[in-house]
C-alpha cells in the first residue's frame, strides 16, 4: 500500500508509520499528520456528504475553521460525531467513519435531495411544513428529525473523564504564530507570568505551513529556537492543543486543552480534555487570519479548497489532494500557493487570477482577468471551467483547485463582549474594532498585519505595551514584508448553486432569495438562511454572504454590518463543560458520624441535600420498608430509639448581644430564656412568611446554640450574617457554624433517660427534676468526654439530644447500642423520624413550604408584639390574617383502610370538586403504626374551628377521593405528658 499523494519534507516523521481505518479501509500515515492530511496523501479527497443536499465533500481548509470534512471519530462508546478531520491528530489505530451518507460515501441515496434543491432553499421548513397542523407530530417532525444533524452519537455513556482547572497569568497570548511567539519572547524575557496557548498540536502558526525565511533561514528554525527559549523560562507556560474559546468578564478566559485526543485512549487517571479557566491581567489575541473562498458554480467539489490550505498540506504535511492542481485567486497570496506546490513537484495546471494586471510566472501559466465559473467531477474535482479575459471559456484538467479570496483577521474573541469589528478598505476585511474586551489587545494578522515582518513586530510591540515593559524591544527578525495586494472579488456573476456556507449548505441563491423575500437585517439573513449557524460559525462563509447582501441592497459591507461572534470559538464537547461533575461526583457527599456504623448495620440511605442519612434499618425477615419503619416507631415509643440528627444545622451564637440578636431573627422572644434552657424558635422572612424553625439553647448568658433544619442550614446562616452585618452592624454578636463539629443523636422513648444515665457521667443529674423538659447543658460522658445534652423532642416522647465531638460519634453510637441492649434499643432512620413527627403534629419542610405564616402553622400568637423581629411587621398584614386563613390540622380517613396522600386537596363533603371550592390541602401523610391507620397534616381554611368536620380528600390527578375527618394535628399525646415525663 502506498500513499500516492505523499510529498517530501514537511513536519511529519516519514520513517514512522501509523495505521488507521477510514470507512472500513486500511491506510497509513505518519506522526505529524492530521486525519485529513493522511487521507489526502492516500489519494482520498472525498470525506463526507453535505448537510442538506448530501453533496460529496472534501476538506476546504487545513484547520479548525473546517466546514466539510467532519467525521465520526473512534468507535464504540467513544464514538464522537462531527469531528473535524483537519484537526484530528493521527495516531496508530485511529478509526473513523464518514457521516451523513447511506449506504456509502460514494453512493448516497439521500443525494436525491440535490436534484430537488429548488425545494430546499432558504426558509424551506417555514414554507413547506405549514399545514395541516396535525401533520406536524406524525409526519413532518419524524422526517425532519431523521434528516437533521450529521453524525450519530454512540448512545452510550462516555467512558472518558474531563477535568476543570484554573490558571493565572499576567499575559495570556492566544495563538503561537509569528506574532504570538514574538509577544511571548518579549513578555517572557521581561519576567511576566505568561501563558501561550495554541489550538494546534504544533506551535508556530502559519510559519509551520510556509516556505518563508526568517533571518535568512527556514522560518521553522526560528520557531524551534523560540519555543526552546520559551520552554526554558519558568515564568512562561506553553499550552499547545489548547483553544481559547471565550473572553469573559474581567480577564477570565475559557480554554480547552485536548490532553488525550491524540491518543487512542487517555492514560490511566488522565482526563481526555481540561476546561481551563484562565485569570489574566492582559490578553494578546494573536489568532491569525482565515482565508476566504470565492463563490462560483459547483465550488464545493472535493479537491476544491482554500489556496492556503493546499499550501499547508504540501508544506507542513507533505500531502497534496492531486498531482495536477490549479489556483483561483484575486490576490498575490494565491500565487504563493502555486510557487510552493510547483517547488514540491506538483504540476500547476494554471493560476486563474481575476486581476488583469496579475503577476506572471515562468513556471506555469497565469490566466489574468479570468474566473473559474464552474467545476466538474462526480465525487471529486476533474475539470475547472474558466472564463478568460476575452470572454471565451476554457476547461482545465486538475484534481485540486486552490481558491483565495483574501484573508479575514480572526477577530472572534474581540467580539465576545459585544465589541463590533470595523471595516478596513485596504484589506477588504473586518479588523478588530475599538471596543475590545478590557485588557485585550490584538497583534499580527488578527489585527490586519498580514506580512511576517508585520506580525513579528506587532507581537513584540503589543506585548510591551500591554505589560508596560520598560527597555528595548527584542530585535525584530528579518522577514518578508509584502503589502496586501488584492482586488475584492466575492462571487462569480450569474452563479446560483455556488456555496457560501458549505456546512449548512447555503448558496448564493439562498442569500439572494432571502433578500428578495424582504430580509434586510444581517441577523435575519443569518437565521433565515442559516448562513454561519453551523458549528464552524461561518468562519469561511460569513463575509461572502455579507458582500452579496451588500451588493443587492446597494450598500457597502460595513453598512450591512456583521452578526456577532459568541463563545465558544470552536465546538466543545459537552463532557468538557461537565468536567468531573457526573454521577456520584455531581456534588460532594456529606456523611454523618454514624455513617460507617449504619452501613455495617445494613441501613438504607437517602439523600437529603448533600447528606446521606439512614432512612431505615432493616432487620432479618423484613422484606418491605414499612415493616422496618413501623417497627422502629413502635419500638421507640415503647422503649427507646436512637437517631442520628447531626445533619441539623448548628450555629454558635456568642456575644453580649446574643439574646438581642436572637430576638431579631426569631419572631418569638429569647431575651428572657434562662441559661440551661432551650426554646423552640420560628424564623420569618421579612415578608412575614415562615422561613425556618429550630431550637436555641442557652449555654451561658452570652452563648446560644441555634439549630436549623437540615435543608436550610446554609441559607439560615447566610441570613443571620445578613442581619448581623447589614441590619444591626454594631451588635456584639459572633456567629460560626458548628454543624460538622458535633455528632448529635436523638435518644427518644420512655427508656431514653435510663439509657443515658448509663452513659452520662454521674456528676450530672439528668433526672426530670434536675434536667426537665427543654433543659440543656454541657456535660461529660463515658468517663470524661465533653458533651452537650438537650432535652428536646421531635418524636413527642421523652427524649434527649446528645452531642459529642464528631470523631467520637461512631463510638458513642456503638456505646448507646450496647448499653441499650437491656432496653431493646433500636436505631431509627429518617422515615420513622418523619412518621413520629407527623403523629406529633410537628411542622417540617412540607409545612414550612415558603407560602405559610406563623398563623397558618398554628403559631400566630408566638409572633411577639412586644419587640421588633424580622418579618413581624409584615406578618400583621390584613391579607395574611383573614378570618378564613389556612390553619394546620390533622386529617384521618373515616375508613381506616383508606389512604391519605400528600398533595391532595380538601373539599366539602358534598358539592363540586374544583379550584373555586378548594378548602385546603394535605402537606404530609404517613401510616401511623401507633394508630394503625394513615394520618395526614395539612392546611384548611379556618381549620382550627373545624375539628370533627367530615370532608373529602381529592386528588384528581391520581383519581383519588377519600372521606376524611378533620382532627387535631397532635395525634399522639396531645397534652405532652410523655415528653415531660
Amino acid at each position, binding site marked *: 500500500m502506498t500513499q500516492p499523494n505523499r510529498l517530501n519534507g514537511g513536519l511529519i516523521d516519514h520513517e514512522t508509520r501509523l495505521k488507521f481505518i477510514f470507512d472500513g479501509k486500511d491506510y497509513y500515515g505518519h506522526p505529524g499528520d492530521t486525519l485529513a492530511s493522511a487521507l489526502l496523501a492516500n489519494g482520498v479527497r472525498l470525506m463526507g456528504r453535505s448537510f442538506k443536499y448530501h453533496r460529496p465533500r472534501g476538506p476546504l481548509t487545513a484547520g479548525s475553521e473546517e466546514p466539510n470534512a467532519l467525521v465520526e471519530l473512534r468507535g464504540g462508546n467513544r464514538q464522537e460525531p462531527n469531528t473535524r478531520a483537519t484537526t484530528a491528530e493521527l495516531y496508530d489505530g485511529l478509526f473513523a467513519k464518514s457521516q451523513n451518507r447511506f449506504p456509502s460515501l460514494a453512493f448516497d441515496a439521500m443525494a436525491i435531495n440535490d436534484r430537488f434543491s429548488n425545494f430546499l432553499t432558504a426558509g424551506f421548513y417555514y414554507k413547506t411544513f405549514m399545514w395541516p397542523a396535525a401533520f406536524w407530530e406524525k409526519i413532518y417532525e419524524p422526517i425532519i428529525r431523521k434528516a437533521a444533524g450529521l453524525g450519530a452519537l454512540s448512545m452510550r455513556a462516555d467512558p472518558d473523564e474531563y*477535568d476543570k482547572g*484554573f490558571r493565572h497569568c499576567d499575559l495570556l497570548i492566544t495563538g503561537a504564530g509569528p506574532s504570538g511567539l514574538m509577544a511571548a519572547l518579549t513578555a517572557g524575557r521581561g519576567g511576566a507570568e505568561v501563558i501561550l496557548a495554541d489550538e494546534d498540536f504544533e506551535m508556530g502558526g502559519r510559519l509551520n505551513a510556509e516556505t518563508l525565511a526568517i533571518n535568512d533561514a527556514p522560518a521553522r528554525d526560528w520557531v524551534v529556537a523560540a519555543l526552546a527559549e520559551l520552554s526554558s523560562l519558568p515564568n512562561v507556560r506553553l499550552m499547545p492543543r489548547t483553544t481559547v474559546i471565550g473572553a469573559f468578564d474581567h480577564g477570565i478566559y475559557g480554554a480547552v486543552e485536548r490532553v488525550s485526543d491524540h491518543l487512542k485512549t487517555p492514560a490511566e487517571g488522565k482526563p481526555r480534555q481540561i476546561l481551563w479557566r484562565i485569570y489574566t491581567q492582559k490578553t494578546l489575541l494573536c489568532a491569525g487570519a482565515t482565508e476566504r473562498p470565492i463563490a462560483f458554480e459547483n465550488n464545493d467539489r472535493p479537491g476544491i479548497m482554500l489556496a492556503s490550505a493546499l499550501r499547508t498540506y504540501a508544506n507542513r504535511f507533505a500531502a497534496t489532494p492531486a498531482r495536477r492542481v490549479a489556483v483561483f485567486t484575486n490576490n498575490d497570496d494565491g500565487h504563493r500557493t502555486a510557487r510552493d506546490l510547483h517547488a514540491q513537484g506538483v504540476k500547476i495546471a494554471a493560476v486563474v487570477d481575476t486581476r488583469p494586471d496579475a503577476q506572471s510566472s515562468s513556471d506555469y501559466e497565469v490566466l489574468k482577468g479570468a474566473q473559474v465559473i464552474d467545476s466538474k467531477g462526480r465525487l471529486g474535482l476533474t475539470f475547472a471551467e474558466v472564463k478568460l479575459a476575452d470572454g471565451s471559456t476554457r476547461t482545465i484538467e486538475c484534481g485540486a483547485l486552490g481558491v483565495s479570496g483574501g484573508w479575514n483577521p480572526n477577530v472572534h474573541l474581540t467580539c465576545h463582549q459585544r465589541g463590533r469589528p470595523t471595516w478596513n478598505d485596504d484589506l477588504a476585511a473586518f479588523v478588530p474594532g475599538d471596543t475590545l474586551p478590557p485588557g485585550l489587545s490584538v497583534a499580527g494578522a488578527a489585527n490586519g498585519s498580514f506580512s511576517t515582518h508585520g506580525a513579528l513586530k506587532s507581537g513584540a510591540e503589543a506585548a510591551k505595551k500591554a505589560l508596560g515593559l520598560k527597555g528595548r524591544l527584542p530585535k525584530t527578525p528579518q522577514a518578508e514584508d509584502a503589502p496586501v495586494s488584492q482586488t475584492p472579488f466575492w462571487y462569480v456573476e450569474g452563479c446560483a448553486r455556488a456555496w457560501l456556507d458549505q456546512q449548512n449548505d447555503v448558496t448564493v441563491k439562498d442569500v439572494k432569495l432571502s433578500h428578495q423575500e424582504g430580509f434586510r437585517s444581517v441577523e435575519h439573513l443569518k437565521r433565515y438562511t442559516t448562513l454561519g449557524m453551523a458549528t464552524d460559525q461561518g468562519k469561511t462563509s460569513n463575509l461572502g454572504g455579507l458582500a452579496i447582501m451588500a451588493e443587492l441592497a446597494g450598500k457597502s459591507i460595513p453598512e450591512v454590518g456583521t452578526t456577532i461572534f459568541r463563545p465558544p470559538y470552536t465546538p466543545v464537547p459537552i463532557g468538557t463543560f461537565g468536567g468531573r461533575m457526573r454521577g456520584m461526583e455531581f456534588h460532594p*457527599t456529606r456523611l454523618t458520624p454514624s455513617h460507617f456504623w449504619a452501613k455495617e448495620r445494613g441501613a438504607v440511605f437517602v439523600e437529603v441535600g448533600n447528606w446521606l442519612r439512614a432512612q431505615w434499618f432493616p432487620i432479618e425477615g423484613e422484606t418491605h420498608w414499612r415493616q422496618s419503619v413501623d417497627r422502629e416507631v413502635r419500638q421507640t415509643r415503647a422503649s427507646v430509639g436512637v437517631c442520628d440528627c447531626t445533619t441539623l444545622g448548628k450555629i454558635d451564637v456568642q456575644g453580649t448581644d446574643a439574646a438581642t440578636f436572637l430576638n431579631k431573627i426569631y419572631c418569638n422572644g429569647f431575651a428572657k430564656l434562662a441559661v440551661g434552657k432551650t426554646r423552640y424558635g420560628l424564623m420569618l422572612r421579612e415578608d412575614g412568611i415562615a422561613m425556618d424553625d429550630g431550637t436555641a439553647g442557652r449555654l451561658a448568658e452570652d452563648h446560644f446554640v441555634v439549630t436549623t433544619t437540615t435543608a436550610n442550614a446554609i441559607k439560615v446562616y447566610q441570613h443571620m450574617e445578613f442581619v448581623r452585618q447589614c441590619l444591626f452592624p454594631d451588635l456584639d454578636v459572633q456567629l460560626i457554624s458548628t454543624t460538622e463539629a458535633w455528632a448529635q443523636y436523638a435518644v427518644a422513648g420512655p427508656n431514653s433517660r435510663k439509657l443515658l444515665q448509663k452513659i452520662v457521667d454521674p456528676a450530672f443529674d439528668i433526672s426530670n427534676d434536675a434536667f426537665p423538659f427543654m433543659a440543656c447543658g454541657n456535660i461529660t460522658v463515658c468517663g470524661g468526654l465533653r458533651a452537650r445534652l438537650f432535652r428536646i423532642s421531635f418524636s413527642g416522647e421523652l427524649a434527649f439530644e446528645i452531642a459529642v465531638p464528631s470523631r467520637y460519634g461512631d463510638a458513642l453510637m456503638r456505646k448507646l447500642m450496647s448499653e441499650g441492649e437491656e432496653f431493646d434499643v433500636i436505631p431509627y432512620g429518617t422515615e420513622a423520624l418523619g412518621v413520629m413527627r407527623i403523629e406529633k403534629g410537628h411542622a417540617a419542610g412540607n409545612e414550612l413550604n415558603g407560602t405559610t405564616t406563623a398563623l397558618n402553622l398554628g403559631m400566630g400568637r408566638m409572633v411577639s408584639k412586644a419587640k421588633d423581629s424580622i418579618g413581624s411587621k409584615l406578618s400583621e398584614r390584613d391579607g395574611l390574617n383573614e378570618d378564613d386563613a389556612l390553619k394546620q390540622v390533622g386529617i384521618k380517613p373515616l375508613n381506616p383502610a383508606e389512604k391519605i396522600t400528600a398533595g391532595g386537596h380538601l373539599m366539602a363533603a358534598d358539592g363540586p370538586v374544583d379550584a373555586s371550592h378548594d378548602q385546603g390541602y394535605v402537606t404530609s401523610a404517613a401510616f401511623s403504626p401507633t394508630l394503625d391507620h394513615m394520618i395526614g397534616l395539612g392546611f384548611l381554611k379556618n381549620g382550627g374551628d373545624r375539628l370533627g368536620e367530615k370532608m373529602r380528600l381529592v386528588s384528581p390527578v391520581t383519581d383519588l377521593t377519600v372521606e376524611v375527618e378533620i382532627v387535631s394535628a397532635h395525634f399522639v399525646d396531645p397534652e405532652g405528658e410523655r415528653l415531660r415525663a
Partner: protein
Amino acid sequence: MHDLAPITALGGTEPRIDTVAGVTLTEKPGLALASIAARHGKEAACRKHLKALLGSVPEPGKAKLRDPEAGFWMGPDFWMIGAPFDSHEDLAAQLVKRFGTSASVTEQTDAWAAFDLQGDGMEAVMELCCNLDIRQMQTGDAQRTSIHHLGCYVIRRDPTDWVRILGPRSSAGSLHHALHTAMKAAL
C-alpha cells in the same frame, strides 16, 4: 479518661496516606482547632492576646505558622487557632481562659478534616482543584477556596511544596476523592 475510640474523618482508625508520582496526600487527624472572634469594642484586647499567643496577628489572607499554636485569618476580627490534638484537645477551653471576654471562642476541632498535600507536583494538582493562584502563594499564605464545591482553607507551609487543606469533615471522603483524582490526573 473516657473509653470512646475516635475515628478519622475518612472513617479509619489510622490516617490515610496516598502517594502518586512523588506527591503525598496525608490525612491529618492530630489537629485541634478553635475559632476566635473578637467581641465588639474589644478588638484591640483580642489582638493583644492573639499577638501574645502567636507572636503576631495574622492579617487577611495570612497564617502564622508556629508551634505549638498556629493561626490564620478567617474573616474580619475572626481567626482560627490550631494546635496539636494530643496536647491541646481542650484548646477551646484553654483559649477561653486566655482571651477572657475579649473574644468568643468556639471549638472547631471536628468541624474540619485536614489533609497535607506535599511534593514536587503539588502546584499542578492544586490547579485542577481550585482557583487559587497557587504559584504566587507564599509560605504563610492562607486562603479560603472551593474544592469540589467544598469551602476549604488552603495554607502554604514550609517547605513550599507543601499545602495543608482544611475541608468540612462530613465531606472528607468527597474531598479526599477530589484531591486524589486530581493527583492522578495532574501527575
